[in-house]
């Protein structure tokens, strides 16, 4: 969720900020320090966290700084241009700008761009681009004119795209705008004509850009108050150089259409833009953050003293000239979520933005997925209203607990739903209390089993076994397999004994019976009961179609058929996924009847065959058991019950199969080992060739 934090001002005593604002605010190699260049003669280095300047440098009387000072990230030095042609390079220790390194260039500089991990680039008025080092090596070198005479550079930006520096600049000629993309390494220059709306009058276009894959997404704030996006390809594959680029509406009416100068737009990240300007024709100037994806206003801040219409965004802070002061507004944006994107409108009260809900009710939220700007708007409003109406009726945690003690199952369920829909500050502890209350009542009143409530609570994903130790026991008592499955999926800390008890229950015949009756009502009890992995069901279907084949196979051994019903398979998968420690699990596994162990082994073997059937050694479906989980369980079961299984005639076949399988695997792996060894020998041989003998003459160059 994007939010603007408390603003603060930097003292501007040393700056001569005119009404037209500053030349620029630029980052330095230190995270917290920024270079501010005023429109006159001064460059100031600010440390933002201290809100004070660290250093200030001025050019001589009569000279003017013509391009904002930047930091050369490679050397930590600062670079500025004054009187269009004179380049100065200095570092923190230097006091007087007159005494520092000076280079007079042969052409007028438009701007110097510097970003991290590359050398600064100098953009000349006539569109030529030079690397700083190359320029300094020969300052008086001839600078060619790239753009036609009447075109004037309006805006430029510098990016690193896959380690390749890319410079984009926009020129204007009689109200027509052109974009140039300069790839600095390959020296490719592409020119594009920007197509703009016909009826618009271009008083002042405002641009900002971001690299998006293979395109530069150029966002312009048009004079009608809307933001438009133009995609400019980074690598022009067209031979024809002057392509025309259309634009698409990105945000509608972010600023008042008739606004004078002093509106500006800056891209913050891929989803957010900051817009500076009056939102309504008569209103004061305002800084607003918009979410592009959901077309929502995230937050805004009024700037009553007016701005210079300039906005810089560096390292989580927005810089602007508010009145006479250089103002810094820290900006923070958490990962954009659907809930966050719902945002708020300009009309809602300021106080709401502070109390963001800690818990998001996904059921209610997902209903409000915005389809378009306007419908979303009304829906949000409606939801707000509903919530406000509900507020007095929502029970507090204490109330709810008292209801749990006495109330009927139905009543509790209704109250709980209300409670969950509401945000609570310490949600974890309250949920724990509620579960404990419910379980206590379950213990005292055997007939009381608020299944739906418990399912709801588990689905909040804040519960763990240790928070409600009795829950799984009660579910076991009630042989509520769905609940157990849910618990196995959600709880990270189930003790091995309970896991084993679940396993026992899942393997027992009682399930089978239950399954039958449940099959009819599958549709109803779908809630939380994740459907079995599809491969099983498909398989069993296939087999049903070919009863004859199946019959044949069962005679040998039903390797391809799933030995358990899909429901049971899903339950067993939940057990396979649960965490365990071998030493604690083994003794409990011994308690499981041999018949069930055989069944489980058959199922595991089936899974294993399925797994090894494909190249990636995985099973299809959502979160299937992994190969290592399957193998671990096979080993565990055999470790725990080997002597017992050995005695059972039905298991003999299975054991034989497992044995054969292991044997064949061993032979395969030994072959692989042999191959590996011979490859290693080959590698050694090739290394030997390159290794030098006892004596060699080598070249060493020291720089």
């Amino acid at each position: 969720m994007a939010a603007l934090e408390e603003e603060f001002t930097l003292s501007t005593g040393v700056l001569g900020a005119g009404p037209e604002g500053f030349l620029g605010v630029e980052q330095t190699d230190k995270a917290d320090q920024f270079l501010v260049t005023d429109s006159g003669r001064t460059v100031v280095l600010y440390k933002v966290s201290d809100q004070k300047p660290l250093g200030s440098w001025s050019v001589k009387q009569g000279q003017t700084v013509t391009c904002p000072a930047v930091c050369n990230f490679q050397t930590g030095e600062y670079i500025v241009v004054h009187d269009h042609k004179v380049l100065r390079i200095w570092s923190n220790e230097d006091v007087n700008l007159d005494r520092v390194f000076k280079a007079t260039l042969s052409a007028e500089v438009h701007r110097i761009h510097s970003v991290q991990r590359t050398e600064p680039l100098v953009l000349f008025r006539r569109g030529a681009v030079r690397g700083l080092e190359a320029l300094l090596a020969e300052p008086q070198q001839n600078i060619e004119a790239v753009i036609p005479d009447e075109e004037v550079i309006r805006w430029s930006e510098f990016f690193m795209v896959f380690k390749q520096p890319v410079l984009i600049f926009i020129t204007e000629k009689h109200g027509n705008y052109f974009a140039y993309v300069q790839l600095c390494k390959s020296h490719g220059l592409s020119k594009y004509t920007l197509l703009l709306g016909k009826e618009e009058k271009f008083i002042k276009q405002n641009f900002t850009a971001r690299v998006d894959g293979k395109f530069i997404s150029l966002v312009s704030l048009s004079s009608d108050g809307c933001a438009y996006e133009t995609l400019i390809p980074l690598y022009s594959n067209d031979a024809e150089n002057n392509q025309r680029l259309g634009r698409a509406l990105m945000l509608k009416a972010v600023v008042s259409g008739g606004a004078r100068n002093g509106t500006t737009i800056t891209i913050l990240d891929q989803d957010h833009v900051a817009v500076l300007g009056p939102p309504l024709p008569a209103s004061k100037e305002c800084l607003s953050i918009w979410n592009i994806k959901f077309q929502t206003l995230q937050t805004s801040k009024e700037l009553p003293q007016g701005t210079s219409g300039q906005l810089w965004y560096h390292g989580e802070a927005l810089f602007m000239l508010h009145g006479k002061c250089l103002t810094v507004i820290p900006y923070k944006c958490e990962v954009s979520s659907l809930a966050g994107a719902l945002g708020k409108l300009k009309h809602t009260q300021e106080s709401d933005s502070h109390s963001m809900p800690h818990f998001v009710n996904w059921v209610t939220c997902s209903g409000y997925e915005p389809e378009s700007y306007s419908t979303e708007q009304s829906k949000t409003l409606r939801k707000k209203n509903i919530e406000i109406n509900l507020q007095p009726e929502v029970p507090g945690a204490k109330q709810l607990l008292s209801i749990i003690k006495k109330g009927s199952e139905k009543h509790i369920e209704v109250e709980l739903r209300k409670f969950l829909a509401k945000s609570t500050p310490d949600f974890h502890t309250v949920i724990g209390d509620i579960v404990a209350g419910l379980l206590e009542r379950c213990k005292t009143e055997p007939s009381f089993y608020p299944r739906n409530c418990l399912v709801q609570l588990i689905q909040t994903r804040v519960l763990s076994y240790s928070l409600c130790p009795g829950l799984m026991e009660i579910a076991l008592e009630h042989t509520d397999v769905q609940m157990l499955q849910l618990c196995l999926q959600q709880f990270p800390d189930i003790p091995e004994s309970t896991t084993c008890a679940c396993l026992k229950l899942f393997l027992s015949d009682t399930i089978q019976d239950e399954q039958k009756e449940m099959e009819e009502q599958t549709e109803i009890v779908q809630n939380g009961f994740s459907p079995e992995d599809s491969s099983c069901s498909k398989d069993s279907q296939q087999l049903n179609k070919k009863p004859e084949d199946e019959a044949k196979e069962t005679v040998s051994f039903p390797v391809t058929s799933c030995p358990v019903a899909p429901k049971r398979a899903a339950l067993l998968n939940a057990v396979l996924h649960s965490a365990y420690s071998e030493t604690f699990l083994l003794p409990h596994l011994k308690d499981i009847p041999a018949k069930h162990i055989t069944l489980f082994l058959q199922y595991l073997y089936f899974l294993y065959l399925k797994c090894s059937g494909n190249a990636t050694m995985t099973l299809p479906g959502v979160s299937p058991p992994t190969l290592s989980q399957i193998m671990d369980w096979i080993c565990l079961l055999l470790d725990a019950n080997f002597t017992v299984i050995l005695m059972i005639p039905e298991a003999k076949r299975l054991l034989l199969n497992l044995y054969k399988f292991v044997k064949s695997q061993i032979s395969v792996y030994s072959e692989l080992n042999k191959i590996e060894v011979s490859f290693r020998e080959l590698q050694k041989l090739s290394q030997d060739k390159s290794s030098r003998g006892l004596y060699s003459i080598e070249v060493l160059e020291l720089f």
Partner: protein
Amino acid sequence: MGEFKVHRVRFFNYVPSGIRCVAYNNQSNRLAVSRTDGTVEIYNLSANYFQEKFFPGHESRATEALCWAEGQRLFSAGLNGEILEYDLQALNIKYALDAFGGPIWSMTASPSGSQLLVGCEDGSVKLFEVTPDKIQFARNFDRQKSRILSLSWHPAGTHIAAGSIDYVIVFDVKSGSITRKMVLDRQHLGVTKSRCIVWGVAFLSDGTVISVDSVGKVQLWDSATGTLVKSHVIANADVQSIAVADQEDSFVVGTAEGTVFHFQLVPVTSSSSEKQWVRTKPFQHHTHDVRTVAHSPTALISGGTDTHLVIRPLMEKVEVKNYDAALRKITFPHRRLISCSKRRQLLLFQFAHHLELWRLGSTGATGKNGDTLPLSKNADHLLHLKTKGPENISCSCVSPCGSWIAYSTASRFFLYRVKYERDNISLQRVSKMPAFLRSALHILFSEDSTKLFVASNQGSLHIIHLLEGNFKHLHTFQPQSGTVEAMCLLAVSSDGNWLAASGTSAGVHVYDLNHLKLHCTVPAYNFPVTALAIAPNTNNLVIAHSDQQVFEFSIPDKQYTEWSRAVQKQGFHQLWLQRDTPITHISFHPKRPMHILLHDTYMFCIIDKSLPLPNDKTVLYNPLPPKNESDVFLRRTAHAFKISKIYKYSGTGDEESEVILSIMASSKPARTIEYPVLKHVGAGRMTQNQTVLWQTHSSRKEKLQVELRV
């Protein structure tokens, strides 16, 4: 900056000998190390662990025990039955005294340092009084049946503990009689061994005797009652050495498995005052037997068959992160074992008992950085010169013209004339060396090979004029009156006018060779000199010290140069000062007077005096910049130190004519299997018939029978 052709030489198969004993001297913070070939080295732990002195070995002197007595006097004893005292000033053996008890297995000095005790093969324990200039036999203790392998004094000096085979005895010093005899258990994990050898004992002030034995046990005994208090089984092989800290709160033992265990006296519970010995930390820094350990106040020191000297700091005792807080592994000697003849491109390798002369190969090809050039001529092994007698070679040199080879042992000096006739090489010994030329610590030829400079012990410097097949003694610089400090490093200027000589502690003396007088003395510095050289043309003397400082001293002006002052003012880069091997060689670029070339074991460096010095913020080890960066960037980041860490140096790097540099990268000793290291098998040295079975560690699987000459 500079392009060099590097002659990468790996045929210098120098293998250091295994370490037999270490003895730590708390008073001077020095460490004496003796090796299996009889070499004794002195390391100054205060001067960045620099090996400042060394005494060449002797075939018949297998040192078995080493100890400091009377403050800073160093004694050793060995299987030839002799006790030796070393003269640490003149760097020679003061005297050797036969103890008349057969091979000596152990020796220890009394807590006061005024008495020496030796344990002999015949089972006798002999007490010697240390007199100011010698030692004197005092008396024998009660004689035992079998040899005495280990000895330890009670800190009060009243009793001693002696370890023999199968038992530990406690003697009363006054009467010389046995007060207790403690018999050890030969069983280990249910297997009874034929004998249990007590490799080490330690007597603590509370009367506890700690014994370590061949069964793999560390046992604590009560000497008053003669009972076993505690037994720790720590190894399947022998526990070979023990050393106790002065505070008696920790001790260290070394095993034949290469492991070193640290034991500490810790309270039983956090509040109780009752303490017990607990095995706290194992360290595995050795690949083979740890024959000896020492315990300095802040570090555990261990050495063994794998030839490494390992100094492991006790982190709880180290207060600041500095030089002493790092684990040290000293493998290579800190002196030059290689000399180079520039004109003939010859290399002379110095081994313990022979010299090898090699001619470098050549190539006509050129290449870019990192290339290996095709050889037009491979390196040739020209000469293998074996020494006469049992003594190790202490120093050697080949003249720049290649026609003279000189070397010295502890008692004899040899000079050879080498003649090259096409492919043949003939060697002729120059006979009738003058009597004063008996032993040398450093030998140097002048640039034109007409003069030979010999630094002998007792501090004198001899200058000898060399003629075709003959010589003439020109002059001897006697040491300043009152000092007997030996000179161990020499440097001569290329014009032959100046000779610089440095001792182990005093400053560097510069002699005027034309007028044969002392020209000046460079002010003494706290740390010993590790390398010296005089620059051609300017005659600036460059001195490297063991604390990694480098000075430049102008000989004509008798003062430090401007550059040197500037360096001292700014200080060296932190990383430069943190290197842990000393600079062993300095040389100069014949065409570029601003460059100083120097190297230590792990890096080669050119100091360009014309460039600014690096400060702590700049990157010292500048990696190769990418080619596409322009000169401007280079100009800004360039600093005076150009360092390459590609090669390893055991000997010397010496520049050849033009821009070619030749660097000798030596083989690593012991660590690789190419150079077999003797691995201790079975009971080791202690079998009855004195024949020991050794096995090579390499894959060759051959067995060597080594006769101990006893």
